[in-house]
């Protein structure tokens, strides 16, 4: 135990902050994009729905390295779009923190989208109609009726998205690399120190990840649980 305390003092904590920042930002982006996409998709007819759903879910089903390959293909500074971003907006994706966020978002987004969609589809259409006949705007109906009613599904989507985004490894390592203090996330640090045979440091990081993951899930469950009084137990 005292070894762990010693280790904590001399440890480079940057991977923790990078992972947390990446997780939070990717979750926020996925949250809004996921809700938006879910709302669009459920309004489509059966065919369009199947196709769109397939495309939006693909990053979750593919090996992350395949997603990383495509991301590199798009954002590499030696390719058209990458050059365009760099020259016009001075934006670099490869080997930057932005790359971390992008990789994590692409991989984690389907979890948000799918959970939101499933939750939206469970909603009684009469709730939306009631909102309309009461004169509520469509935006107001969405944010004040649909999202809160779909609360549990959206909350679980958010938890899963955050967990997935924070732990992303495959696509991140390809797109953003493992630059200490810049793109070196916890997952990448664990893999690195294990390659060096340093199981103590690896174990230390594993414990931290476990604690964070558990606390996050517990917190979100507590927050959403409060507003779920109306949902009856069965």
């Amino acid at each position, binding site marked *: 135990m005292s070894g762990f305390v010693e280790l904590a003092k001399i440890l480079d904590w940057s991977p923790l902050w990078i992972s947390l920042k990446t997780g939070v930002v990717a979750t926020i982006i996925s949250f809004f994009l996921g809700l938006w996409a879910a709302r669009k998709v459920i309004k489509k007819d059966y065919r369009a729905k199947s196709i769109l759903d397939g495309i939006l879910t693909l990053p979750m089903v593919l090996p992350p390295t395949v997603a990383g390959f495509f991301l590199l293909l798009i954002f590499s500074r030696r390719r058209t779009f990458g050059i365009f971003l760099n020259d016009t907006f001075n934006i670099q994706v490869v080997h930057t923190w932005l790359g971390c966020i992008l990789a994590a978002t692409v991989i984690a987004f389907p979890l948000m989208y799918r959970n939101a969609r499933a939750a939206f589809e469970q909603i*009684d259409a*009469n*709730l939306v*109609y*009631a*909102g*309309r*006949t*009461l*004169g*509520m*705007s469509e935006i107001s109906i969405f944010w*004040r*009726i649909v999202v*809160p*009613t779909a*609360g549990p599904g959206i909350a679980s989507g958010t938890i899963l998205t955050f967990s997935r985004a924070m732990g992303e490894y495959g696509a991140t390592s390809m797109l953003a690399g493992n630059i200490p203090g810049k793109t070196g996330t916890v997952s990448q640090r664990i893999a690195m120190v294990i390659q060096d045979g340093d199981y103590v440091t690896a174990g230390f990081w594993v414990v931290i990840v476990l604690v964070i993951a558990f606390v996050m899930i517990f917190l979100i469950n507590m927050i959403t649980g409060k*507003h779920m*009084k*109306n*949902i*009856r137990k069965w």
Partner: protein
Amino acid sequence: MKRLYADIHKTIEGFDLNVKIESDAARIGILGESGSGKSMTLRSIAGIETVDSGHIEVDGRVLFDSASKTDLKPQKRKVGYMFQNYALFPAMTVLKNVMAGMGRQTDENRAKAADMLRRLRMDGFEDKFPGELSGGQQQRVALARIMVTEPDLILLDEPFSALDSYLRDRMQVEMLEMLEDYTGQVVMVSHSRDELYRFSEELFIVSRGSIIRHGEAKAVFRDPESTIAARLTGCKNFSEAVQTDKHTIEAIDWGVTLKFRKKVLHPVHCIGYRAHRFDPVWGDKQENCIKCDVVRVDDLPFEKNYYIRTLREDEPLCWFVQGEEQRIINERGLPDYLKFAEDDILLLE
């Protein structure tokens, strides 16, 4: 003068809806079986359902007109709609539900919403969630939520069908009381003749997507004109009929010749008779009588249902007896004959 005009044409999955409702009554009823198109009519008026063609107007305000391509959004129609399941927003408190249609969450609106809840005797429930309320309480909140937006028209879609039967009777009376202050028209759709008889001034009967009878509610019950309408208003006994002269109709299925003092003017193909309206006759056979040959008796809590043999084996006459009449039968035994009272015979097309 309030006036609702709705001429609605719509085809969906092989079902044709062609209804025309025109009424200046304060309380309008629409009676029909499930799948007859009555709910679809209501949803069309509210703008929840799209309409192929027609014209919908409330108090001179055009909500829909296919000729001029007018089609107001439900938000702009000022039509309150009460859903069968009340559709209260589950994640909002009672007060927030009532305020949902009021726009800004100002103190003034909050006071107005609370006042409406008080008028519908739901004060004290402001901070509860819909899931914590009984069916009757949910209904009152749903009504408060509608009334507070001061709509030009209120539509009630089977408002009592989700309630327990003992609550249903009470809520029917309460609904009328709660709507007392409301000056606009109210349309109620139901498959229950009792609910609509109590509620409606003017009644429309819908069958297979069209209006088959309309008029003052009591008059429609007295003279439904068609077999379908008679059945929907609760008539149990029907017989094919042949008119032999101006004062005589032969009830084929019952084997009874019915004499009328008044002239029968319209062509009659069928006659109906309500199960509660028979007069028991002891002793000699009188005019317009059928032999009281009971084939089955059903004992219900407050009435007895007797089934009387006719010429049709599969269709006995229903005779429903209550209270005082049953007491007499208990004393004197079953009558020898049942008499059809001339005024109660329904002459149907």
